[in-house]
């Protein structure tokens, strides 16, 4: 993770396998892509927001939990909710 040691291997599925561990992850992915397509967020804002999550939240979260946390941060900052 971030080139740092001590976090173990990165889990990676087989090529062609299901890319989501649960339905809610697919929903988060779709939400992010819809917000991007509508010009609400771009990929770099999403990466930046993931990096700005509180460290305790970031370290405890799964991959798509980080995406969701970043989307929540961005739509709040942009005044959309």
């Amino acid at each position: 993770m971030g080139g740092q040691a001590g976090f173990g291997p990165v889990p990676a599925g087989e090529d062609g396998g299901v890319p989501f561990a649960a339905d809610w992850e697919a929903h988060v992915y779709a939400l992010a892509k819809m917000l991007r397509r509508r010009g609400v967020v771009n990929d770099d804002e999403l990466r930046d927001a993931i990096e700005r999550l509180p460290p305790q939240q970031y370290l405890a979260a799964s991959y798509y939990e980080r995406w969701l946390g970043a989307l929540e941060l961005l739509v709040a900052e942009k005044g959309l909710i």
Partner: protein
Amino acid sequence: MSYQPGSRVRVRAGDPDHHTRVPRYVRGHTGEVVAVLGHWTLPDDSARGITPPRTEACYAVRFSAAELWGSGDHTVTVDLWESYLDRP
């Protein structure tokens, strides 16, 4: 664009107070350009809502694991924008 495949480059060692695509583990290290990837918008700008973002050449830069971590026989290749790099 300033570099070609085979160019030696050193990654700038700064730690900006905004988003950047330079991983900390390559900062200050020297690698070799292995491909020129065309021109792309600078993530440091687009992450901050700067419009229009700067557009720069982007390069695939290969580092030896030994250069980055002091040991290992493999290499790591990172996509890096023009302004992240200097000549060594």
